[in-house]
């Protein structure tokens, strides 16, 4: 009978089993932290729990729909507001195109190195942040677009205010974005005010980024806006990243301690844009004059 309990349990005792599983877990932890040999393992488990996550998301869907149907009373006013916003943004965009053309012209005149082709017509994919429970230790968020929607690893993710992060893991129907504040994440930036180039890195704490390896007497002030410089080819240039919060200059230290706050937010109901991959910077500097002469 199935319900007869086993009085004499055969097999390894609990402590031996614990040791086996502890060893296995430590292997997995080490593999996930350092080596990353088996990304397929995560994919398969992700495929298994995907229906459960879908079910868990149903109450939020219902809540959103109720919210929308209540908010639809104000749709007309919102529409008018968005039309106005669109027209203003459009005007700025046209000005930007004109400025870009003038910029390339001036650069050619000065004989400066040809800049990376800025993709103002870059295709961007709209995605929504899935409100999956975020571990307080990992600085990653999940989006609802994945490999099935032609998303690739390494694409930059922005919201309406600034950079959110970069796509680091792909599942078929969702993707994971590493936020700016992750400890292993850095963005090449430049200060808007004086074009000082640097790199801003995550600290692992929420809402804190730091600028490392800048000397103590560097020209930087509280409230400075940091934008992407485009170096490195991952993030397109000119997108706001953070504002400087506080600067500690200790003359005995080699470097100043500069803490900045990221501009983008990761609250719920945020829609984000996944930007297409930027063209890589041409490697060989000797090739540059050749390109210029071809353009002429």
């Amino acid at each position, binding site marked *: 009978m199935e319900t007869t309990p086993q009085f004499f349990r055969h097999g390894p005792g609990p402590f031996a*089993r*614990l040791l086996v599983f502890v060893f296995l*877990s430590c292997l997995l*932890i080490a593999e996930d*932290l350092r080596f990353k040999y088996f990304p397929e393992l995560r994919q398969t488990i992700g495929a298994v729990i995907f229906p*459960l996550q879908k079910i868990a998301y149903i109450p*939020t869907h219902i809540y959103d729909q109720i919210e929308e149907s209540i908010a639809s009373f104000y749709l007309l006013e919102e529409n008018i507001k968005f039309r106005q916003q669109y027209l203003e943004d459009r005007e700025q965009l046209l000005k930007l195109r004109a400025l870009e053309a003038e910029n390339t012209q001036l650069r050619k005149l000065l004989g400066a190195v040809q800049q990376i082709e800025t993709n103002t017509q870059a295709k961007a994919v709209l995605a929504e942040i899935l409100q999956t*429970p975020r571990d307080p230790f990992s600085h990653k968020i999940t989006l609802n677009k994945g490999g099935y929607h032609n998303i690739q690893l390494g694409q930059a993710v922005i919201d309406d205010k600034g950079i959110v992060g970069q796509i680091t893991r792909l599942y078929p129907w969702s993707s994971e974005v590493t936020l700016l504040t992750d400890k292993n994440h850095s963005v090449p930036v430049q200060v808007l005010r004086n074009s000082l180039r640097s790199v801003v890195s995550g600290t*692992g704490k929420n809402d804190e980024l730091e600028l490392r390896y800048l000397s103590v007497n560097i020209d930087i002030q509280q409230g400075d806006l940091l934008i992407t410089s485009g170096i490195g080819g991952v993030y397109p240039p000119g997108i706001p990243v953070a504002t400087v919060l506080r600067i500690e200059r200790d003359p005995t230290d080699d470097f100043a301690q500069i803490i900045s706050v990221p501009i983008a937010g990761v609250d*719920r109901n945020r829609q984000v844009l996944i930007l297409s991959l930027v063209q890589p910077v041409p490697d060989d500097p000797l090739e540059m004059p050749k390109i210029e002469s071809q353009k002429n």
Partner: protein
Amino acid sequence: MNHRKTRDNNLNANDYFRQDVHVPPSSGYIAISLTIALILNFLPLPENILLFRPDFVAITIIYWGINHPHKMGMSIAFGMGLMMDVGNTTILGQHALAYCIAIYLTLILGRRLRIFNLMQQAPQIGLILLVMQTVIILVAVLGGAHLPGWQYLFATATGILLWAPISLLLSTPLKQKSDLNAL
């Protein structure tokens, strides 16, 4: 002569015999309860409520580990931990390790815990949950994260509070319905 009734405030034989006889659960019932716990763990919640959410999967695993240890083995706990890790974008193996250690403590202390009633079990379960959360924090710090504030341990506190209701919920379908007309 000492006429004072000696009230034995500790456990006596009556407490042990007053336990209900439960129908042994089928594997399907355990599987369904684990699936529901996993769904509850994945439920999206606002940030401030998320702080108070207990680990439903851990509580369910400990419940089955106490009451039916031969059905709930360490491999099931390991598998559930892996699924939690992938769903929560944490380090693979973090929750798996924590759940295995929790099951191990449950297997050792399980027989002792069964003779307590639910309200007395709750603090002891809380201890197991605390050990589990400490393991999670340790692994995360090993991966280079900062130590969280003390608010992180709220999940243990709510786990203690919800232990009794969840145990009742899980055991109610298993109670044998006594036939009132039987002799």
